[in-house]
Structure formats: C-alpha cells, structure tokens
C-alpha cells in the first residue's frame, strides 16, 4: 500500500470529500413526513450482470496511470466537449451519467468504491451466487439475502405485492421460502383470462360442495383429500394466487406511455416500480436485472457499448427520481455487480474479470455528494494479483446498513449473514429512516 497515495487522497478530500451539497432540496431531508401513510420504505436493487467496470464509471481521471493503462478505452478528461463529469480533483463520472451526476450534486447519490466479495472467484456464476445469497464461498446457503430478510420479518398482514422482481425470472437474491413474484412480460392478460376460472379456488370449492350436496362425496370430503387431490389443490391455489397478484399489478401498472423514461426495458421497469410505489400497495423490495456488462472486447470510451448502457441506467434513474418526487425520501435505489474489471485494458479494447467493483446508492436517505469506500490507487503493487482493484468494503456491510437504515433490521444481531460478523467500520452512507 502506498502511504503517499493515501495522504494525497486525504488532503484533496477524496475520502471524506463532502463537496456539492448545495442542491439539496428541502423536502428531501431526513424526517420528512411519510407521504404514503403506512407504506413501507422501498428498496430497489438493480443488478448489473456481467461485471460492471468501476473504473470507467467513477473515473480517476487525474491519475496519470488511468490514461496509461487504458489507451484505447479512456474517457476524455473534464472540460471540453464530452469529458468526464467532475466530482472533485481526482474522480469524475462517465459523461453518459449526466442525471446521476446531478443527483450526486443534489446530495442524493453516492458511489461506494472498492466494494465487493471476500471470495476471490472471478467466475460470474459463483460471484453472483455468493453475492446474491450474501454468503461468499458458502454453497450450502441456498436462499437469497432479500428473501431471507423478507422471511425473517414476515407477518400475517404482508402485502400481496411486498416483493417483486421486474423481469420474468426471479434473481437469486429473491429466491427462497418467502413467496416473491417474478412479473412476466406483458401480453399475459389473455392467458390469465383463459385459465382464471379453471384455477379459481373459490369456485372450485363451490363445485365440490355442489357435488357433495348431490351425494357424490360426504360433506367433510373437503378436508379429507387423497394425496393426489391435495396436490391438485396445491397447484390450483398457486395458479389462483399468480392470477390475483398479476391482475393487481397489471391494473396498477397498465401499459401507458413511457413518459420521461427512456424507451428501453430498464426504463419501463423503473416506470413500473414508480407506479407500484405510488399505488401504495406495500411494495417493499423490487429487483431489476440489467444484463450485458461483461465488456471483454470493444467496450468503448466516451462512446460505445458501455457508454450507452451507463446512459440508459442514468436516464432511467433520473426519470425515476423526478417521477417519484418527495417519495424518494423513503426509496433507495442500490446498484451492484458481481465484480469489477481489470485495471489495465486487454488486447481486445476491453477489460477482463476483476475483483472490487463499485456500488451506487440513490435516495433521499443517502448521505450523498460524497465518495465512499477506500481507494488505494492503481499501482501494480496495490492491486490483487497485480491486476485488480482490492476489495476494501465487504458488500455485506452495505447490505447490512441498507436493511438497518430502511427497516431497522439489525443484520449483525440477527445472525443474518452466515459465518460473518462484521468488524469493519460502517460505511455510513445512509441516514436512518426506520423507527429504531
């Protein structure tokens, strides 16, 4: 580790740099009244699958190594057209992240650098798995961290729409004992109508009662099902539940226009989350997958594939925050990825799998306008295996603080993360909005 680098960072206020709090809107301060009455805060987890390159997202433009290590994919320095959007004397946002940069300036957004897993795997699958189950290296944990949280805190009054994934498959973080719902694509209305009556368990009961009344079976047959009949009922009830929940969602979300949201899948997903939160139906956890961050070749610099994806992300989040207005006080968008990428570009104008990545948090409770996490530079000797950013913040720390801030759920006390007792210093990126 290089002491000089660290000192430099401290002096230039990069570690604690609380600049740019100017744009903070009064309605977004801590303790603002809860606009939705009894509605829970909402956590929107955005998973950037494939390994987001942290260095071309939160760019250390002032480090001479940056241009040296990334000759073909470097982003232009600030000033001039299309350069890095300056955070401070050292870091800046990728120019495609205009909306996110504005939220940073308003004090609603923060990046967390050098964040990641304690497990050294560079396999997408293992790394995503370990992260989404918040159990690095432990394969026996099969339930996602969000699901475990939902399960641990469930009550008999849980909303039907308490937890949703905004695409057709449940991400691993949401899988487990707690009944979460993957929202399938549109156009499902017709098929639901076709099967609605067949799976309608109330009228099934009616039909059975009718049969019973006609003398087919004794009246108490209802509770004395054969195992095969019990299985049929279980399937019917599951179908009934899907239709009920999906109808509710379709009603709340409808199809409508995209408004200010980009006309992309991600834009649509954010739009739907906003609609669901506004509907006040108790949405607490929403998961969005954004695939395609594995830029091994031709990832581009100022322009190109990754730039477009960052732009889509930034525009979607920007539109979401505008749309939500004061509701952002109780809404947190958290982006994450399974790992970062090699500091040095590879032979194909791209980057390979690395270690530490960066997370981004956007919300009213975010102590934004600061860069969190410990940055230890890009010198070879400060890198893992001479190539990758070191992990200084365990992602479990971020998860724990998120659950504590939003819901007052104390992960450490609950033994929530298997084989993990955090001795790390808190990141401290969130104000607490939950009642203690």
């Amino acid at each position: 580790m290089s002491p000089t680098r660290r000192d430099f960072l401290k002096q230039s206020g990069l570690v604690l740099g609380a600049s740019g709090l100017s744009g903070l809107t009064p309605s977004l301060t801590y303790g603002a009244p809860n606009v939705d009455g009894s509605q829970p805060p909402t956590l929107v987890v955005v998973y950037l699958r494939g390994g987001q390159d942290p260095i071309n997202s939160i760019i250390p433009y002032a480090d001479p190594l940056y241009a040296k290590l990334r000759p073909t994919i470097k982003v232009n320095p600030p000033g001039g057209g299309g350069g890095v959007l300056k955070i401070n004397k050292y870091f800046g946002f990728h120019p495609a992240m205009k909306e996110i940069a504005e939220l940073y300036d308003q004090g609603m957004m923060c990046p967390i650098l050098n964040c990641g897993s304690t497990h050294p795997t560079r396999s997408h699958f293992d790394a995503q798995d370990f992260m989404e189950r918040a159990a690095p290296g432990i394969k026996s944990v099969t339930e996602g961290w969000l699901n475990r949280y939902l399960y641990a805190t469930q009550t008999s009054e849980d909303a039907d729409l308490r937890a949703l994934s905004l695409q057709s498959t449940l991400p691993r973080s949401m899988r487990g004992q707690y009944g979460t719902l993957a929202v399938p694509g549109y156009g499902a209305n017709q098929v639901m109508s076709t099967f609605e009556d067949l799976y309608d368990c109330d009228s099934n009961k009616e039909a059975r009662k009718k049969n019973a009344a006609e003398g087919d079976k004794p009246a108490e047959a209802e509770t004395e099902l054969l195992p095969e009949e019990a299985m049929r009922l279980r399937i019917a009830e599951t179908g009934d539940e899907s239709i009920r929940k999906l109808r509710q969602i379709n009603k709340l979300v409808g199809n409508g226009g995209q408004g200010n949201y980009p006309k992309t899948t991600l834009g649509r997903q954010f739009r739907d989350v906003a609609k669901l939160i506004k509907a006040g139906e108790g949405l607490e956890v929403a998961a969005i997958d954004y695939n395609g961050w594995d830029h091994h070749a031709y990832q581009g610099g100022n322009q190109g594939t990754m730039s477009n994806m960052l732009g889509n992300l930034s525009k979607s989040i920007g539109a979401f925050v505008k749309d939500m207005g004061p509701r952002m006080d109780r809404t947190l968008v958290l982006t994450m990825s399974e790992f970062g990428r090699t500091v040095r570009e590879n032979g194909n104008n791209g980057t390979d799998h690395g270690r530490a990545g960066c997370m981004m948090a956007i919300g009213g409770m975010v102590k934004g306008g600061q860069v969190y996490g410990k940055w230890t530079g890009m010198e070879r000797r400060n890198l893992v295996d001479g190539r990758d950013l070191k992990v200084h913040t365990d992602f479990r720390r971020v998860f724990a603080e998120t659950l504590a801030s939003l819901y007052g759920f104390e992960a450490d006390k609950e033994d929530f993360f298997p084989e993990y007792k955090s001795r790390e210093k808190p990141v401290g990126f969130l104000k607490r909005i939950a009642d203690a």
Partner: protein
Amino acid sequence: MRRPSDLTRCFQSMVLFVLAGGFLLAGLSPALAERPEKDLGPALTEREQAFHVLNRLAFGPRAGDVNRVMEMGWEEWVREQLDPKSIDDDALNEQLKKKYPSVTMSLGEALREYKLPYKKGADPEYIKRRNQLRSKARDELRDATLYRAVNSPRQFEEVIVEFWRNHFNIDNNKDDVAWTASDFENSVIRKHAFGKFERMLLASSQHPAMLVYLDNAVSQKPLTERELKLMERYENRDFVPRSVAALGRARGLNENYAREIMELHSLGVDRHYKQRDVTELARVLTGWSVGYNEDGEYGFDFKDNYHDDDNKKIFGSTLRGGGMKQGVGVIRELADHKYTAEFISYKLCRYLVRDEPSEALVDRVAKVFKRTNGDLPKVYEAIIFSDDFMYRQNHRVKFKTPFEYTVSALRATGAQINSAGPTHNMLKKMGQPTYRCIDPTGYYDQAEAWLDPGVLLYRWQFAMSLANNDLKGVRVPDHLQANLSADSLDTRLIQRLVPARIDPQTRNEAQEALAKGGASSAWGVMLGSPEFQQQ
C-alpha cells in the same frame, strides 16, 4: 371408501417422512422405527398403473401408449425398458446425426469440427466465427436433449439420464464446457447409467467438462511456508523477481470439486466428511486437470507439476506421498461408502416415487445398492418393483418439472420438432434452461422448487401456443384436433391426459373451451390444467 382413521394415519406418516428425510440429509442416524408403509388404497386401477409408469418411467404417454402398456402388462413394459439395448433406436440415432451431429461425435471429432483455436488479438470476424461455432455446439446438445426425451423409444433411459444429468450437473455455458458437455453426457452418463455407480463417479472425475466446471483443472498444490515467506519479503518492494511474482498468480488449491464430489455426488451434505477432509481431498486431487496429449488430443491430463506430493490425512487416516492412484483410491472409497448408498437411493426414490420417500423404502433400496456394489439397474428395479411404487399415496403426487412438463406435452400432442429453439426459450422462462443450471446441485425435482406463482403463467402460455400451433419450430398434427366434439371430448382428449378422478371444474372448463374456442382451446386448457402438471 376410506375410513377417517386411515386418513389421519396417512397425514401423520406424511409428517414423519418429511422429518425422516430431514434427518437423513442432516446426517443423523434415524432412530425412527422403520415400519414398511402400507397402501392407503384404493388400489390403482390397471389404467392408472399404466399412466403411473408412463408418467414416472417415461416422459408421459403418447397416443396409444396407455393401451399398449395395459396389454403388455406394466411389469413387462418396465422389464423391456430396464434393458434399453433391447429396444431398437436406429431411427432416432439417424435423426440425431442429421439434426445435431455434434452429440454423436467423439470428443476429438467435436473439437475439430466446432472449436477454432483461441488466438490472442484475433480480428473481430474470427472471434465472431469462433463464438458462433461454440454456440452451435452448445445448442445442439440442448436441442438433442429435448429431441431425445420426446422421441426416444428407450424412454426410461432418457428419464434416468435426466436424473444423472442433474446429479452430475455441468453448465455448458462455462468456458470450454460448451464443447465437452456432449461427450460428458455420452461417455459418463449414458455409458454408465445402466452400469456400476463407481464407474460413473470415476468417469465424471476424469472428464474435462467436470474438471473445468468445478475448477479442479486449475487447482494446484498450495504454497509452501518457504514460498509464502519469500512473497512476504518482496511485498513492499518495487522490484519483484519474476519467479516470485509467478508464485502470486493463480497458484493454489481450489476446493470446489473436492467439496462437491462428497457433498453432491456421493456422501451427501456434511455426512462423514469435515472441512479438513475437503481441503485434504482437494490436495489429493491436485493435478487432475485437462490438457493435450502427445498426439494433440484434448482430454484429461494428470499434471505432475500441479500435484501435491506430500502426505495427506483424510477421514482420519494418513495417505503417504502422492500420485494419481491416490485419488482413484479415495474416489473408490467414496463410491463404496454406506452413506453414498443411502444418499443415491434416497435421491432416486425421491425422483421416482415421492418427494418425501418413506424411510423404510430408502433403507431397503440402499441395502440393494450396497449388496450389489452399486449395480444401478438392480437399484432401479428395487424401487420400481417395490410395493410402494404403485401405492395410491404415491400416485400423481409429484409436480412435473418444466422439462418434464414440456416434454410430456409434446409427447401427448404428437408434436413434431423441427427446431427446438423456441421451445427452449419457454423452458428458460419457466426456469429450467437445459444444461444451463449454474448450481452444481443441478435442477431439483421436488414440487417445492417449482410450484411458484409466476411459473405457471409460462406453462399456460406454452400450453395455449402449442395447442394453437403458434409455437415456432414445433407442429401439432392436424388429425389430433380434427372433428373433436362434445361427445368425443372425453375419449379423445381428457382420458388421454388424465387417468381418472378429473376434477369437475377441469371438465367443465374443457367443455366450455371447446364450445367457445374449438378443439385447440380445449387442448390448450387441458394441457394447462392442474391435472396435467401432476405426475
């Protein structure tokens, strides 16, 4: 009519089975009395029996299958299926060769035909071509899997191959597995599915697909104390000699495979082994890797320079020195262990009989496994010809996996597969893309894993689009639905899909669908009904 006391007992024993299953997996010796289960009757009719074997030991009935099994007698049908070589499948193999040639090739052939050498800094055209060929190999295996399950006359072979495919799961999207998965299926699973378990376990442990998938190929002897000190010494210096820098790169043990071969492939989780045994087995298996032999053929390669020659201590006894034989010895020991017999028997009973199989049945099957040294056909027989197999309480109590559901629908409709891609997209939406399970556990076969809200929606979409011939790549023959009438609905549709005890609600809905939307609607509704999801 059953008496209430029977029912109470039924539910009590159900609870016990769940507990017993839990104990078995938790590694506690079951102290429960193992009284054999009784049939809670009424006994299955002949027709129900035929459906039962076709749903459990085949991927569901095709037109005429139920009658054929009833005529033969189900036991006779099973005996034939248990000896797959006796069933002619030349026509199928011809189709495979034509449609999915890579699955019929040897590993060497497949690599020559489908793998362009990796070139650093190659031009984009070359990279594109290389990727296309890689996808082609991957998709051919995926599509052949579906094609075989639907069309093979050796149905039980396909059913049991699906079991082992998940038991020895590999993900053919990981690195070179795209090219080697096909050979894994042929030379590990198919070759030994009707042989000895030990042979299959050993074959899997020496196949490139498994070694790459579970990272053993890159596992190397850990750094010695001396080497660690050397690295420390250079930690804060600007100049690091090349030899020292090399130590820091990718040098070390990877425990992934060592853990899974015990946890998932043989003993069962936390049975017999401790973390220390995992590490020690990983050391034993260092050097079990992949590479090219003198003739340039790719395959298993024991790398001396990766191998840890020091003594190891595993399961309490010391293994002197190293060498490849050491690993073979330990794997044989695993295959032979009584916990392995129990674990494999438990999983097979769960697959073929019920999600929570009775302790007594598992115990009897495990004894056969042990006595025959893991002779798999004998083990299958012990399950299928047990009394329990045909008990009422085991009938239609399993929930089809997406794969089982899809294949059974294609079989029931007699659909012809021209291109499996669109069907596979549906499987993916249902959560079970073929050969793409990233977990080493493989896909589960219990209802608990699949009976989620959301999933059913895709089954319904599949059912409707298949029945309406809207699903690309597959075609339901016209004669299936021609002239279906209210009078023939029962014999031509309902009875083909459901053995008996159809819920009145389902029947009403099928009748209504026929009246409103015609034969294709009625077929769609029946394929999407709760009854057709039951197995």
